[in-house]
């Protein structure tokens, strides 16, 4: 979507830093996401991508830096102001996070009942529409415990789009799903983004999924952004030979994109203090 860059970003992250204890989980993240695009954030486990997502939805507050949604800084907002912003975006959690005491239909109806003045029959129609969009209309009366993993995610998605949000966040939407269900979820993300004209931000470490859905991609490593670019840029990086690449960062990204067992990512783990560690044991034994 080349024209998107001309618009002003709907999500703006600027120099965001966050530490837990002594560990710096996010280290100066700056990221702009434009209306209508699907931005996929990739990175290994523990790279900070889920933490980044939690800062964007206001669950966590950064130590430094700003997070702007719809042009307004959410880091300085009161809970009431933040709640107004929260009604304008939806989020699909990793586990689906359905409320287990409510049926699938009631889960979808909950935001509508609480945040709108619609009457019950309208809400019922809305719920049917949302569930049909994710292909779960006939399962409205089931309890979440009766659903498979893929169905739970789809139900969670129906709840996330209940209030017709402008932004959709996805936290590992395909993790723990079989390949066919994963592909269905991917297709659903693309369809919803196009049909509902929303902006999507997807956090994942499934490369096939990332390359299927992304307009732009962003790779996170150790709390820093290694690379942001279009899907095409990432594809050509993946398909390039290592000799063509100059920068260390590109080599790291390439290994991750290809899922190679050996490369710069794994090399840096080998070059640790393993020998020193073994020597220390010897020294202690001598004492």
């Amino acid at each position, binding site marked *: 979507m080349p024209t998107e860059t001309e618009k002003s970003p709907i999500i703006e992250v600027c120099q965001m830093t966050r530490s837990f204890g002594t560990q710096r989980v996010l280290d100066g993240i700056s990221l702009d996401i434009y209306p209508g695009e699907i931005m996929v954030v990739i990175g290994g486990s523990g790279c900070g991508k889920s933490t980044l997502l939690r800062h964007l939805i206001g669950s966590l507050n950064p130590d430094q830096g700003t997070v702007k949604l719809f042009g307004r800084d959410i880091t300085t907002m009161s809970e009431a102001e933040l709640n107004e912003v929260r009604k304008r975006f939806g989020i699909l959690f990793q586990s689906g996070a359905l409320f287990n005491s409510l049926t699938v239909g009631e889960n979808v109806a909950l*935001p509508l009942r*609480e945040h709108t003045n619609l009457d019950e029959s309208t809400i019922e129609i809305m719920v049917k529409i949302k569930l049909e969009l994710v292909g779960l209309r006939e399962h409205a009366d089931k309890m979440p415990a009766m659903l498979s993993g893929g169905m739970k995610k789809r139900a969670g998605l129906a709840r996330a789009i209940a209030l017709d949000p402008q932004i959709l966040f996805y936290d590992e939407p395909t993790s723990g799903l079989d390949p066919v269900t994963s592909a269905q979820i991917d297709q659903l993300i693309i369809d919803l983004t196009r049909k509902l004209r929303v902006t999507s931000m997807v956090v994942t470490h499934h490369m096939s999924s990332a390359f299927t859905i992304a307009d732009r991609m962003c790779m996170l490593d150790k709390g820093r952004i290694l690379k942001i670019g279009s899907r095409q840029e990432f594809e050509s990086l993946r398909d390039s030979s290592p000799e063509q690449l100059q920068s260390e960062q590109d080599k790291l990204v390439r290994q991750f994109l290809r899922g190679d067992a050996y490369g710069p990512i794994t090399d840096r783990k080998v070059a640790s203090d393993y020998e020193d560690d073994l020597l220390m044991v010897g020294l202690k034994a001598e004492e």
Partner: protein
Amino acid sequence: MKQSDSESDKAAKATPLARAVASLGRFTLTAGRSIFSMLGGMSLLLGEVSSSTAKGLLISKQRIGCDALITQMVRVGVRAVPIVILIQMAIGMILPLQIFPKLDEFGQAEQIATINAIAGFRELGPLMTAVVLSGFAGASIAAELGTMVTAEEIEALQASALNPVRFLVVPRLLATVIMTVMLTVIADVVMIASGMLTSVKLGIDFDVYFQLTTEAVNVTGFVTGLVKAAVFGLLIGLIACFLGLSVKPWQGSEGVGQATTKTVVYSIVAIIAADAVFTLIFYSYGLFD
């Protein structure tokens, strides 16, 4: 690294007594800190619950979900009814049997009725109900909320601009308070009935027993018992909700288990402590005369 080495060296050189004192000190410090932070957190939660409940009563858009409240009342209370009845039947029998020989020596055997009534209405009815409910209601609420934290449900509520306190804590807390009071009434009645049966078996005249019971049970005794029950219920609900919501997502099932155990232990301690305070207050205001 180096600093911790030197610290451990120091610890190794210290005498066993010094080490014991040091660990006792550390324990007291951590325990004190956690008690204060817990009390603080619980007070904040209580404040939020109060404002949420007040808003729920006044503003129709923020009404308290009646369905949720009834569901919780059934869950909290109804299943506990048989246990409460069983326990109170046993206590209503135990107390007369324990005291009867001594009273009989003084020729005051029929005073069992008075003792049973006072003990039941003022003390054992509310206390035993609360103890049963801290296991039944408290543990299950803490486990449920803790599991909801680990399943990202609480975060999902917040991300949907829904307040977990209003949605989850208020109905559970109100249900616990209401059901503790209602169960206490059942517990009172069962204990009196059971005591009556036992006493009649021991040879006390039914009419005398009945009359002494009605004399011993006055409105004040009954109401003070129910006030205590309400506060016990509040404590159980507050501790359970607080500890359940304090589980961290990454703690998983271990965190949920800890929250559940802590809820039962802390609830019982809190109930007994509150009971002592109430008894002192009621006594000094002459409510027991």
